[in-house]
């Protein structure tokens, strides 16, 4: 059956689905995989901007589904990775322009000659989410360590299970270790305690992410970024590699490092 379809969803908006999709796509391509990322957020497209491919769009997802464009015509090749493609969402239509069945047909074609098809789901639990869920082989749920995002993630996990697409794996995005230590933010353990779902990635809060999104160069291309590294680790785990979780302690500071050094660590 060829490649694997991975859907990235969250329930709540603004938790980092699109950022996660872009970075997962880039990181998988960086591992030498053939990858297509699909923006299923019809009417509110973003993935093209974050990947820096906005000005290359001619055809989009709805054009393919409605037969105005051939599949190949709507696939935009990434500037840096020859084997990474984007299928952008239509900006002028709404979610009803595409059906879950359309998405299954589309991804079945893409599976044939790609290793991974990654779908960026829109927020919500309606048609757009259903479109993104239907073709999925694996679902990654993005959440933030805050109560409302976790509540929505829980709801979405229930829907994923009901659709027999479960159990899915969890990406905890924008974790601030400092705040967790002060008891001001949920820890990864707290999130796991409620959702009881395997965690595939913990992404630390990182200011590089915002500047990267604005400049269209996803953060995983920035080797100095901790969030970028964390996303790269998620990609490796998606391929089945066993990657240990990185130490999330934020910049220990010179003094602390010195102490560790003196401690013989």
């Amino acid at each position, binding site marked *: 059956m060829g490649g694997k379809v991975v859907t990235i969803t969250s329930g709540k908006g603004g938790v980092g689905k699109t950022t996660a999709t872009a970075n997962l796509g880039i990181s998988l391509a960086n591992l030498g995989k053939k990858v297509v990322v699909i923006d299923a957020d019809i009417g509110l497209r973003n993935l093209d901007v974050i990947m820096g491919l906005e000005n290359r769009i001619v055809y989009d997802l709805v054009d393919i589904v409605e037969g105005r464009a051939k599949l190949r015509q709507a696939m935009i090749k990434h500037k840096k990775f020859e084997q990474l493609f984007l299928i952008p969402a239509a900006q002028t239509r709404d979610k009803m322009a595409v059906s879950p069945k359309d998405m299954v047909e589309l991804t079945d074609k893409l599976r044939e000659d790609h290793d991974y098809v990654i779908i960026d789901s829109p927020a919500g639990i309606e048609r757009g989410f259903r479109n993104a869920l239907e073709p999925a082989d694996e679902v990654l749920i993005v959440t933030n360590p805050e*109560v409302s995002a976790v*509540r*929505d993630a*829980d*709801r979405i*996990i*229930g829907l994923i*299970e*009901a659709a027999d697409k479960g159990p899915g794996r969890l990406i905890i995005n924008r974790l601030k270790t400092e705040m967790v230590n002060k008891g001001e933010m949920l820890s990864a353990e707290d999130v796991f305690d*409620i959702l*009881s779902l395997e965690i595939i990635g913990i992404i630390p809060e990182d200011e590089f992410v915002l500047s990267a999104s604005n400049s269209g160069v996803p953060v995983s291309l920035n080797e100095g970024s901790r969030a970028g590294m964390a996303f790269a680790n998620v990609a490796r785990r998606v391929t089945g590699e066993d990657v240990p979780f990185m130490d999330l302690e934020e910049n220990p500071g010179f003094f602390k490092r010195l102490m560790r050094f003196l401690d013989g660590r």
Partner: protein
Amino acid sequence: MQDELIAIKGVKDGLLISLSPTENWQSVTDHLAARIDARADFFAGAAITIELGTRPVPKYELSSLKALLERRGLSLSLVLSESDTTRESALALDLKTDSNKRSAATEKQETLPVDPEETGTGGVLVRRTLRSGRIVHSKGHVVVFGDVNPGAQVIAAGDVIVWGKLRGTVHAGADGDESAVVCALEMSPSQLRIAGYIVTSPAGKRRHVAPEVALIRDNQIVVEARR
């Protein structure tokens, strides 16, 4: 004749429609639609309880049945079934569901409180975690083998037993039975009701977690460790 396919009778809170568990699903539902259309005024606005017997009804079929009723202005308020598949389908559609035995019992003795000794098995067993947005509703007891997460709800005329963490909203003795209890391995519901009483969990994390029981004593809900 139609009567072999479906039977309709009035019950306390609406209409009970029993669908033959053996006849072809399509013809049963077609007949049902025809019966409703033929006497629209009789059915108008009624809350419908559907009894499906032993037939395993997949989610999409139950969903189309629900739509069939809704198109005619009727609400499907309860699904009675002896099949786990059907009850799973009903839960997946956020429909209230129950086993048949309980319905027969409650029908005959509408005014009597649920008596766990006499009716024995009346209740629903949910063998998974109830996540946010999920509602389980039963005329009997509810046992959840899993957690009840924040945003999920359990409403039972009888007792509620959670073999896991109770963090959602729970209502035991929902028809007014003040002898109903709620048990959980970890008792931190966002809201707990027994009959007409309501309490919320104290704010903050609890250091000590142990199985507890909530019950009404001296006109208030008390929560205590199980001895």
